[in-house]
């Protein structure tokens, strides 16, 4: 049943059926267990968790239960997790919040970081008069450990390398990176944006290497609007949002209690099901790429499957603009993206494809297909056909 709203929603759009959703890296649908919990929690009477009365304390109880659940998954203390609005915000806190507390003069980030790290790091370097170094990557997106080793020294204040890349799915060797940072820049903080890794990588090992880890809910079947940051005991962070004592005064603002609980549910569910998820999705992803590549439609795999998560099927489509292709796919009920777009919604050139050495004429030709918990075999078969058919229709000359 669709409720009455006081603002303008086209009710025909709500609950409309999509045939084929291949955009889990952008956001994943709410998992049934998360949706069920949401419905329960929305019926609850919850006060402001900072308050003193029993409804407030109830909210506080839920919030702390969520926090404990996430800290258990990460194998860290509950007081090392703070909630915020998103992984983007967590990245901002991790970078802007830590940099003023360090003595170093340099920030190193991988060349394929999400803009919430890249742009924030650039801003931090500018504000504090520091140098920013981009760690080069190879053709699969793996960071050049030799370069990192050569450029790590006691002058480095912060290193940020994302666990899983949002466009091409590359999984970094966090253990090796952590080892190098400890060896060559023992005072430096090591941050990892793990937003895309929740469904694919065991998060509990990160705390051994990283001082700071950003987490997202909505890439793992949870809701948009909530994220979290893990901080090790030796990571000194200053707030970037002021005006309240919430989250140990590190992140002002009334906490999103329901969001935190749903996030905890989603993260635990994802981490408990890493193996079954991998076993189910990998063959679907492999089939999708194989069908596309063998179709003779000028499609090639962007990076090696061994280097990335099992849900990522990023491909390069020759001589077709991604804008037009996404449009043609949408007309056929297929949801996909490129992974890089600007505020207007238009596709922009991918810095990730540039960093892995893809030729510049292909920067606007990347197609990101990402599978997830809800992807079915039928969707993949349909999607592969639709993509090939869309390409044929775009390549036919109409003038």
């Amino acid at each position, binding site marked *: 049943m669709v409720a009455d709203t006081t603002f*303008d929603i086209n009710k025909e759009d709500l609950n409309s059926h999509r045939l084929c959703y291949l955009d889990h890296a952008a956001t994943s649908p709410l998992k049934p267990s998360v949706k069920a919990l949401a419905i329960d929690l929305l019926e609850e009477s919850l006060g402001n968790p900072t308050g003193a009365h029993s409804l407030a304390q109830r909210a506080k109880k839920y919030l702390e239960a969520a926090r404990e659940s996430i800290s258990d998954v990460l194998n860290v203390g509950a007081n090392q997790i703070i909630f915020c609005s998103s992984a983007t915000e967590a990245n901002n806190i991790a970078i802007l919040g830590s940099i003023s507390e360090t003595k170093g003069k340099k920030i190193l980030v991988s060349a394929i970081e999400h803009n919430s790290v890249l742009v924030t790091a650039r801003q931090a370097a500018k504000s504090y008069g520091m140098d920013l170094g981009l760690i080069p990557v190879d053709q699969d997106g793996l960071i050049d450990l030799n370069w990192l080793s050569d450029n790590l020294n006691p002058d480095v204040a912060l290193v940020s390398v994302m666990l899983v890349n949002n466009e091409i799915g590359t999984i970094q060797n966090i253990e090796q990176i952590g080892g190098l940072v400890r060896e060559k820049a023992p005072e430096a903080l090591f941050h990892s944006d793990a937003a895309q890794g929740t469904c694919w990588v065991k998060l509990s090992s990160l705390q051994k290497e990283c001082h700071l880890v950003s987490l997202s809910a909505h890439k793992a079947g949870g809701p948009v609007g909530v994220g979290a940051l893990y901080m090790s005991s030796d990571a000194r962070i200053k707030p970037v949002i002021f005006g309240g004592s919430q989250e140990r005064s590190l992140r002002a603002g009334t906490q999103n209690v329901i969001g935190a609980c749903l996030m905890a549910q989603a993260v635990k569910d994802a981490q408990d099901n890493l193996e079954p998820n991998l076993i189910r999705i990998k063959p679907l992803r492999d089939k999708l790429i194989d069908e596309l590549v063998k179709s003779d439609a000028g499609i090639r795999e962007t990076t090696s499957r061994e280097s990335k998560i099992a849900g990522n099927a990023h491909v390069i489509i020759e001589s077709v603009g991604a*804008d037009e292709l996404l449009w043609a796919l949408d007309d056929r009920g297929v949801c996909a993206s490129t992974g890089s777009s*600007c505020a207007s*919604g238009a596709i922009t050139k991918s810095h990730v494809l540039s960093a892995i050495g893809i030729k510049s004429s292909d920067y606007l030709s990347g197609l990101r297909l990402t599978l997830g918990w809800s992807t079915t075999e039928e969707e993949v078969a349909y999607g592969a056909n639709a993509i090939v058919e869309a390409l044929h229709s775009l390549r*036919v000359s*109409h003038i």
Partner: protein
Amino acid sequence: MKVMVAMSGGVDSSVSAYLLKEEGFDVTGVTLRLWGGDGDSGCCSVSDVEDARRAAFKIGIKHRVINMAEVFDDFVVNPYVESHKNGLTPNPCIECNRKIKFDALLKSALKLGFDYLATGHYALVQKGSSGFRMLRAKDKDKDQSYVLSMLSQQQLSRLIFPLGELEKKDVREIAKQIGLSVATKPDSQDVCFIHSATGRKGFLGKYMAISEGKLVDERTNEVIGETDALELLTIGQRKGVPAGKLGQRRFVTRVDLRERKAYVGPFLNLLVSKAKVKDVTFVNKEIKSGTEIYLQASAHGSPFKGVFFENGELIFKNPQKKVAPGQTIAFYDSVENKEVLGSGVVLL
């Protein structure tokens, strides 16, 4: 029938989309991302995209954004800069129409299964026994046939201009009645990639050296003033040129970038009896050499009579202010000055 409407976020294109939907077309609105830098208006600013999107939602049509920034750089911005380096006065809006809106975008629309592309330009297209004809819009003050004068039969067969029969005030009234927030949005006046705060100098200064030059009286060779931006002077320009000793107005008549001089003289010296054009295109039939036609040298300039020759020469009936090389001259029929016959780009 499926139609793609190019929506800039302004009232004209928004109402065009609405009118076509009312006529029963299957309409999708598209906004182009053309320019990633500073700009007040046009197809880059996120607020314009949001205006277009909001209008599309209000009208009840789908809306998408397409990135054509690279082609725009290649065919509009870079040639604009190069032209200035060579002392020409380009018209980037005409080049955008020629290469982007009615070329790249039209091709994209057809590839995506649309039957037509529509824009909010004020012009009329009629289909007759001899093909498609383009006419001036009913609203003479808003007529934009000049910037569409390069269109071909093939293009016109796939274009719709819903506002050709309407007056601007009616368009705003329609927008108001359907509740579009852009009903009162002012029309954008400037080149979309030039910010009004920094102007042409601020923009071009990032791509080329802009330096001083002397202003020289072309009769006496006397230096009468200076300019700090010789590359930005246009033939026919009076702004920045000191008046003569008796207060007479003086105009730029010639610019010599190598000598770092701009020659100035009285208005009379600007008057020429002919021009030569290249890149001539015809909308319908070729104009026979020796035919008298109306010529228009700017978007809202007064048309004047002249004779067209197939070698690109245009002989004016009466002396006219010289048209700067790089500008477009549009050709109209000599009887009613209503039908667009074609255009050419001024060589000298």
